Structure formats: C-alpha cells, structure tokens
C-alpha cells in the first residue's frame, strides 16, 4: 500500500474543496445542469436512471483496511448499504444524492482516496495485477509504476481534454490478469537481455463498438524512459485522434487508421523531440517504491499442518482451497481470492457489512492489504496457510465464501438496464440465471475455467468481447435479445470473440449456455478449458447444438 505524503494529501483535499464549491454553485442555480455536467464528470459523478452514481478510484485496485471501512461507512451513510466493484478495479455507489457528494469526497480524502478522473475524457484509473507483490511470477512490482502514472496523470495540464477516455493497464507477470491487450495502453514489464527492466508497449486495444487486440508499438522501452514515451503517445493522440464522432474517438481508431507501424513512427518522432526531460527522475521512482508499506513475511514451512488437517475434515474448505487460493511467492503463504459472485447476487456487489469483514480479515490475517480484481472479486494477497481455515470460516459467516473463482458462475456483468441509462437490456438478471443454472458446485468444477462476460449494450462495459462466452444485450423492437460470442479472451492469449448466430430472447439465454457447456464436455480433450476446445473445434458443433435446440 502506497503511503500518501503531505503533498498527496493536500492534492486530494484541494480537489475535494474545489468540488464542494462547484456543487454549491449548482445547488444555488448559478450553474445549469448542463454546465455542471462537465464538472461533476471530472469528479466521477454520473447522473443515471434513478440517481447520481459516484465512481470512486481505487488506484490499481489496491486498498487497506481503513480505506475499505471508510467505503463501507459511505455505503451505509449515503447509499443503501452496499457498493459495486467494477471491471476497472473501482467502486461505484449507485444511489447518491448530489448534496452529499462533497461530504463523501471529504471523507475519502481523509483516508487518502478520491474520485479524480474516474470519468471524463482523461487518463482514467490505472489498473494493475491484483496479485502484485504476492505472486512469484512478476519481474517487478507493477504498483510502483502504477502509482507513478497515477501521479503523473492527475490533473495533467495537457491531457485532461482528450478526444475520449484513456485507460492504461500494467502487468509484470506472464499471466495477464489486467486485460492489458484490450486497453488504450497496455504495459507489460519485460527484462532485457542485459537484465535491464523495460516495458512492452501495446497501444490501441479496446472493446466497445469496435473491439481490437492492441498491437505492440515498442518491444522494449527502457523503464526509466516510460514517462516521456507516454507523453509522446498521448500527444500524438491528443492532436490527431478524431473528435468528430464519439464512437471513433478512442486511440484504437487512430492506431487502426494509421496502421501500427506509422503510429509507432509518429510516436518515436515526438518522443525524440521530448527527450529525457519528460521522464520522472530515478530518485522519485525510488521514493515511490519506498513509500509502499513493507510486507514482512515469516519463515514458514511450505505446507501447513493446520490447513491440511482442516481441509481433510471439511470438503467445503477443500473446495474453496482448490478454486480460490493461488500460489504465493513465500512458502507458507497464499493469495486468497474472495468471490463477489455469490450465486443469486449481483456480480461485484458487496454490502457495507461484508466490506467491514474483509477489512477485519485484512488487518488480522492479511498484512492490511486488499485488492480488487478486474473480474470484480476481492483479493487478500498475503494470508498464512495456517490462517486460511479461520479466514474461510469468517467469509462463510458473511456470505462471501463462494468457491467459484474462474468458474462458470464467476461472471462479469455490467450494471445493465437495472441502473444504466445507456443499456439496451438487463445484464445482472442474466448473470443470476446462468449462475443458478450452474449452482451445483461439483458440476461447475467439472466444467473448469470458463469466463462468461455480459454487457447490456454495445459499449461493452461487461467486456463481452473477451469472454470465453460473451453475451451482449440488444434491443429488438423494444424486446431484450442477447447475442452470444465465443472464443474471446482478455488474458495474455487475448482474442475477440466471434458471433455464434442470431440473438436469443431473454428467457433462452441460460439454456443456451447450458447447451454450449454440454457440447464442450462432450468434445473436450484431456486438460482442455472451454476456450481451448472451442479453438480446436471451431464454432460449428456449438452453433449446431444451440440453434437445433432453438427450433
């Protein structure tokens, strides 16, 4: 966890004070809603179907117990006792009153949090690997770079009115848990032949109406040249990105129109002119690195008797261990995934009480460290194996012990027509139906890793393009229909899914997913995930089965 210094604290406090003034001008009628819109959007405040929605930044998905408790408190005091974790590792409250928003920002500032740049055509919250600092896979701690980018991008004088929003993801592990290749910029930390750290720079990926897996424009950018290079990319985009059509304004459209090679050439040309003056000094990077709270690990045996005994006695714990634990870099420790995909509930939602429990667990058993994943789950990154039975018991008691991470009921869904003014169709109830269809945990485990992602409209907030099975809600003459895509992936093997066939009505979706799964179970070879089988067989057997059923 990065510790704010006085500069960081005063920065968010100033921002909160500015917003309080702006809200006062709106409430007094000095500003019209139209004039106010741009101001509130710079502070993460949206006007949705029923109320204001406030999106709070959780930089690179990292927070501590005190911050989580504050979010719980805000949910309880100003919302309806719950919040929604998003695919960009942020938190949304959906039932906010405008007059409360300044108080909420003050409350956030007190715990070193903010809502800066969670909306608007600016550089948004940087997303990163939720296992950072805990996984043995990583080459460096991506949070250091994420925090440096957070600071550099905050109220950037030149890049706060871009053609469109701008999202950056950073990962330092070969297993990409950030969907880096479908971001405006994806940064993958690499080590050069001489041992030097650098970045593979991917630009122009994205979802929405026009999905792209981004091309690499620099194979190896020396790490200490990152900021001048980012400046060059953003400047080329700011000058040349389209501003005549909101749907063609993302950087992916510019990169695709120019071609990756020509875009890379323009960036290189601009980069040469900027020179090292645009870089952050090594001393500041070292300071940021040092400002992360140190985690102290005990020397422990690789296996824990307490844990093994408890697992043998409790099949539910054993199932949780199989599906929700991930290897930690230190022996005797584990990464615990806490699923926010309890069957029947809204994906990504957590109640204030649950947030408090997570905060307690993090404090007592998890080095005061909590992460949010882009798949809308939470992570306790540093838990001793000895403590897993107790953590599991407390998760069970608060209804957060679903052992379904990466399984078919671990579904990403956007808020959809239940909340969002843009949506064409509901997403949450579809997710709930599918989860219920696969409620049998043995069957879900037998199916294995299967990522279903649901968007309620073509803006693709539910990442349907990169779902192993993607579901897109469309409106057909006032009725909700759903288009299925297969074969997408947001991971290191990123791909955009292909359409299965004609859209299905609302009440046929869960059954169609069941059919797809049956085809997979029939066709799969040993060790294949759904995605692997699909890639081998192609769409035909799946298509045949789903549309045979439909007749």
């Amino acid at each position, binding site marked *: 966890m990065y510790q704010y210094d006085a500069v960081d604290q005063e920065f968010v406090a100033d921002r909160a004070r500015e917003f309080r003034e702006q809200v006062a001008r709106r409430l007094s009628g000095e500003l019209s809603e139209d004039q106010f819109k*741009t101001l509130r959007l710079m502070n993460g405040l949206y006007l949705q179907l029923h109320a204001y929605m406030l999106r709070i930044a959780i930089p690179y998905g990292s927070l501590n117990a005190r911050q989580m408790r504050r979010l719980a408190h805000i949910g309880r005091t100003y919302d309806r006792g719950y919040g929604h974790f998003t695919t960009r590792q942020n938190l949304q409250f959906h039932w906010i009153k405008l007059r409360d928003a300044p108080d909420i920002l003050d409350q956030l500032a007190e715990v070193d949090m903010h809502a800066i740049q969670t909306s608007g055509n600016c550089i948004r919250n940087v997303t990163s690997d939720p296992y950072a600092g805990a996984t043995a896979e990583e080459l460096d701690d991506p949070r250091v770079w994420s925090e440096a980018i957070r600071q550099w991008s905050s109220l950037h004088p030149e890049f706060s009115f871009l053609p469109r929003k701008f999202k950056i993801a950073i990962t330092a592990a070969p297993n990409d848990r950030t969907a880096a290749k479908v971001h405006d910029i994806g940064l993958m930390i690499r080590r050069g032949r001489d041992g030097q750290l650098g970045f593979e720079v991917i630009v122009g990926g994205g979802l929405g109406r026009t999905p792209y897996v981004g091309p690499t424009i620099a194979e190896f950018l020396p790490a200490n040249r990152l900021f001048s290079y980012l400046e060059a990319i953003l400047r080329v985009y700011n000058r040349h990105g389209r501003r005549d059509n909101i749907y063609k304004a993302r950087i992916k459209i510019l990169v695709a129109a120019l071609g990756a090679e020509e875009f890379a050439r323009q960036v290189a040309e601009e980069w040469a002119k900027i020179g090292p003056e645009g870089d952050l000094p090594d001393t500041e990077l070292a300071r940021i690195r040092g400002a992360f709270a140190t985690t102290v690990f005990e020397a422990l045996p690789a296996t824990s008797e307490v844990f093994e005994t408890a697992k043998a006695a409790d099949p539910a714990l054993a199932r949780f261990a199989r599906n929700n634990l991930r290897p930690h870099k230190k022996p005797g420790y584990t990464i615990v995934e806490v699923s926010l995909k309890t069957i029947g509930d809204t994906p990504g939602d957590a109640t204030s009480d649950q947030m408090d429990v997570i905060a307690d667990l993090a404090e007592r058993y998890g080095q005061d460290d909590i992460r949010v994943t882009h798949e809308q789950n939470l992570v306790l990154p540093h838990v001793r194996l000895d403590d897993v039975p107790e953590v599991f018991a407390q998760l069970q008691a608060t209804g957060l012990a679903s052992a379904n991470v990466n399984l078919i009921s671990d579904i990403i869904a956007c808020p959809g027509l239940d909340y969002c003014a843009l949506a064409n169709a509901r997403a949450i109830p579809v997710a709930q139906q599918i989860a219920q269809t696969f409620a049998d945990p043995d069957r879900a485990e037998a199916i294995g890793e299967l990522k279903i992602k649901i968007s309620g409209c073509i803006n693709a907030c539910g990442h349907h393009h990169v779902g192993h099975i993607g579901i897109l809600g469309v409106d057909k003459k006032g009725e909700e229909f759903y288009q299925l895509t297969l074969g997408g992936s947001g991971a290191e093997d990123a791909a955009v899914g292909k359409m299965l066939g004609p859209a299905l009505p609302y009440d046929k979706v869960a059954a169609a997913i069941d059919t797809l799964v049956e085809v997979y179970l029939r066709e799969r070879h040993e060790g294949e995930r759904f995605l692997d089988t699909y890639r081998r067989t192609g769409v035909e057997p799946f298509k045949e089965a789903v549309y045979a059923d439909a007749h």
Partner: protein
Amino acid sequence: MPTLIRRQDDDQFILGDDPFTAVADDEGLPPGDVIISFARFQAEGDRLLAEGRAVGVRLEPAEEVEALAYDLPRIAVVALAFPKYRDGRAYTAARLLRQRFAYAGEVRAVGEVLREQAGFMVRCGFDAFAPADGASPQDWAHAVHRHRHVYQRAADLRTPAYVEREGG
C-alpha cells in the same frame, strides 16, 4: 477598448486592455493591431507587418503550431481557439509554443474559455484569456491557485511534486 484577463509575471491576474482587433477572413481590415487567421497571415502578413502594425495569428485546433515556427519572432499574439471547451488540442499547441519553440509573445485562449480550464491553461503557457463565462480576474486567480501542488513539469514555472519532495 475591450478587455482581457492577463496573467502577470508574479502569477497575479488583472483585467488588461486588448489593443488587438480580431478580424474574420471575410471582413475588411481596420487600422491598428489585428489578429487574423493563419491563411490570411500567409497571404497578407508581410504587408501588415511592413505597415508597422502588431499582428497576431489565430490558430484553429486542426492547424499545427509547427507551421508557424518560422514566423513566431514576428508574431505578437498567438490566439489558440477552443471551439468547444472539450477540444483539448490547444493545450498541446500552447505547450509546444512555449517549450519547443520558446515563443515569448502572448498566447491567448479564445472561444469557449471557462474558468474550470484556467489551471490547465496557465500550466500549458497561456497568459491571456477571453473568458466566455463572465469570469473575473479574481475568479481566474482563484481557479488557478486552488491546487497547492502539481505532479508534472509543464510550461509554467511551477515546481512539480517530485522536485518539491526533494527539497523537503
């Protein structure tokens, strides 16, 4: 004489006179100092300068500052247009004028210029403002000075956080 908000060297803001007349391409030229389009400057700039007038050039967002580079020493004002407040291209133009071309003349923000942009504009090197929202120099100063810290180096002289920290 019309007025403008001007930034002074001590980072204070005052209401200043504007001796320039902004002239559209289809208008006749009045006597005195004028701000004209880039196209008109290319056609008539030499003559106007020879007459002893001060000449400013208005650049639309799609017009690149590089095209002006050679003429900058003779241009008294570069007026960068914000057809909409959302159009952020002029921020890049201003920074390049100041930092890449070391332009020392006036960089003026015209068009949909609102107090909420003031901080960004000053940081990018603008020093004259024709606000569209009726903002006063006090409003402008308030908006510009609201943040005690900045995280980036830009075209102004503000010390970025990473330098400030070294001092502390």
